[in-house]
């Protein structure tokens, strides 16, 4: 093990714990706020093909994100879907890293793990750059982008950049990259509940209600006609 400065120790432990606690608190508040709205009631008898039910619709709806063939929007843009997968794997890896370094640094002693994390996070960084370009260049996406959309994307992309350098958990070249990574992680945790990044909190809700309705009405699971040719 190597020695780290008290400031880096604070950033990797106390700062993260406080930020995580804050995020959890805001999330709980947000969920309470959401469930205080009345739930819609579906009185109609089921329609659609036999075998389509509310519960099948909900499961299909939740699993939708892992089925790129299910939606035309993902089916016809496999590269964009691949970007989505890489980007979100990068987020998962970078978050995991913020736990691994302070609590299980031994995991990073194997070169295979370091390489895997760097590949994932590095690829996610590149996707982040592509997405920044797309958000500026695509007129439709530019027109719907709020300051939060731009900032969130920049935040994650920069965070990936520092996470990439933080992966080996080495202070041989100084602590700047680890410090920046942990400070950015803490900022990320505090900022997320106020931004669009919290969409994963809503995903189960929106998808649940859509799946419930569409399942009851026999639309989900989707039946698709053959493609051209």
């Amino acid at each position, binding site marked *: 093990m190597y020695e780290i400065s008290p400031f880096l120790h604070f950033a990797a432990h106390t700062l993260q714990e406080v930020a995580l606690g804050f995020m959890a608190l805001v999330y709980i508040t947000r969920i309470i706020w959401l469930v205080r709205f009345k739930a819609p009631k579906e009185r*109609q008898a089921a329609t659609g093909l036999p075998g389509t039910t509310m519960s099948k619709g909900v499961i299909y709806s939740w699993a939708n994100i892992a089925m790129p063939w299910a*939606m035309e929007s993902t089916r016809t843009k496999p590269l964009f879907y691949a970007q989505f997968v890489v980007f979100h794997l990068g987020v998962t890896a970078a978050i995991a890293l913020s736990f691994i370094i302070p609590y299980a640094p031994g995991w990073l002693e194997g070169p295979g793990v370091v390489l895997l994390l760097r590949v994932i996070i590095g690829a996610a960084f590149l996707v982040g750059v592509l997405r920044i370009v797309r958000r500026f260049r695509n007129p439709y996406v530019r027109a719907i982008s709020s300051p939060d959309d731009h900032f969130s994307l920049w935040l994650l992309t920069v965070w990936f950049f520092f996470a990439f350098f933080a992966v080996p958990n080495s202070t041989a070249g100084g602590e700047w990259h680890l410090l920046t990574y942990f400070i950015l992680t803490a900022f990320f945790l505090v900022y997320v509940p*106020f931004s669009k990044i919290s969409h994963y909190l809503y995903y189960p809700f929106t998808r649940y209600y859509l799946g419930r309705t569409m399942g009851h009405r026999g639309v989900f699971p989707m039946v698709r006609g053959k493609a051209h040719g």
Partner: protein
Amino acid sequence: MSENNEKSLKAQQVIDLLGEKLNRQIVGSLVGCVHCGMCTEACHYVLANPGDVTYAPAYKADRIRKIFKRHYDWTGRVLPRWVGAGTVNSEADLEELKDIVFGKCTNCRRCTINCPMGVDYAVFNRMARGLLVSVGIMPEGVAVVSKDQWEIGNQMGVLKEDYLDTLEWMEEELQEELEDPTVKIPVDEPDCEVVYSINPREVKYDPRSIADAAKIFHVAGESWTMPSEGWDMTNFGLFSGDDALGGSVAQRLYESVEELRGRKLVISECGHGFRSTRCEGPNWAKQDVPFEMESSVNTMLRYIKEGRIKVDKTRNPEPVTFHDSCNNARSCGLFEEPRELLNLVCMDFREMYPNRAENYCCTGGGGAMSMSEYTPRRLKSGAVKAKQLEEAGAAYVVTSCHNCVDGLSDVIRHYKLPMKVTQLVHLVANALVIEKKVAVPVEIPVEVPVPVELVPVPVGAEAEALPLAGRRILVADDEEDQLEFLATVLEDHGATIFRATTGDEVLEMARREKPDVLTLDLHMPGRDVGEVFELIRKDPELEDLKICIITGKPELRRLIYERSVRPPEGYVDKPVDEDRLLLNVRKVLEVVHQEA
């Protein structure tokens, strides 16, 4: 001055009412958008208007979302600009919102099924329509149709006597066609197995669909009836976002079934009618419905499967394709049954792509056909549908929706496609095998109503007599193409035609030529058409002149119907096709015959 004090009363009411309309599903959709833009190319408006970002579903949704964020989501209260929150302050803001929620979206829900987050934009777009309607801001056509449905009980203002007359007329036609005077279209028969509900469009423009359905019920030996009240299964509440109207209309229909002690409500082919009655109605009316409801598509299919009717698909030899109504397919899961039925009654059924829940809107959904101010936009967006239709390579496009019939007819005409639109009921009736041969009359007495071949499937026989022979018809329209079309169709069927392009000409020619029928456009230069109408009605020399309004601006109906003179004998919305024109003119002429 606080922000609230700067708001117009209507803007404040919209904001307040928004709070009452929110539920967990809608809130989830309002907060869930990540602005990824994946929905963009799912929208036919976007595809037909490349580069115009204001048609993008997420852009349109944000016009509603920003109000929610500013007033009901604390992230928008704390950092409004940062998260794109905003508000509405004036009636101009509400008018701008109206243009988006009514004029740039047909609530087809195609973006919904393409959103990775499951944001159901169509649901909250409908909600936004309802908010605007509640403060009186809506396209005039929406106001007119809603008023008719509130006051008269059906969305086309069909009077009870006209409805019953049409049923009687169709009953006579059917008796003549089947050469069986015992064939009935029963009205208000209690304790029947089936209560059949229809779209008022069938009474006004397509009564043959009632006769065809009656023929199928008759051959199947069904115990069925139609209610004399509460017979309209359409529901403009779906389009206007007015849940109160939606609940009231649905309840009226449910009550009529219960009063007749019917065991099953069969809903004729209509996408929004089926969705409103079968799916949304119980939610709007806040009541559980104690009887079964099904689309007539299921009924016809069931009759064939149970052997209650026999069909011969060789009678429908032409290639047909099927257009899935958004409300049927994407909101009610009705997409396999019509295909199964088509394969049973047609020789050559071919799919169009994409299809089922991924099909594109006909462009006439969401009440678009009643909003004439958006017609150019709608027709432009039809380029996507036109391409789909063309690629299908069929002679007929079949659909189970009256709105789609009109929307598709418009697209076909606008893009000059070599195909026609029909519905399953016509194809099934045409394929029906019955013991007695269905005869097409050869000699047709002019005064006697004759069956019009509405089923656009060639059967190799045409009526030899010209049904309008000897009739004098004044055709009034200021659009040259339209005038020529109407005149040519009527002339081809034997009528003597006079043409007028201004209000003054109409009056002058009506007095000079004394025609039997006047087809009158409501929007023409010169003397006000409403005034012309009133002057004709008050002229004793023109007492026998029958008038059929043909208009693309339903909101102008008040010019005619609010006058204290006899209403016109006929009314047709544009676009009008040959069959519909002939049918209506002949119906008007039948009034002449009956009164003579």
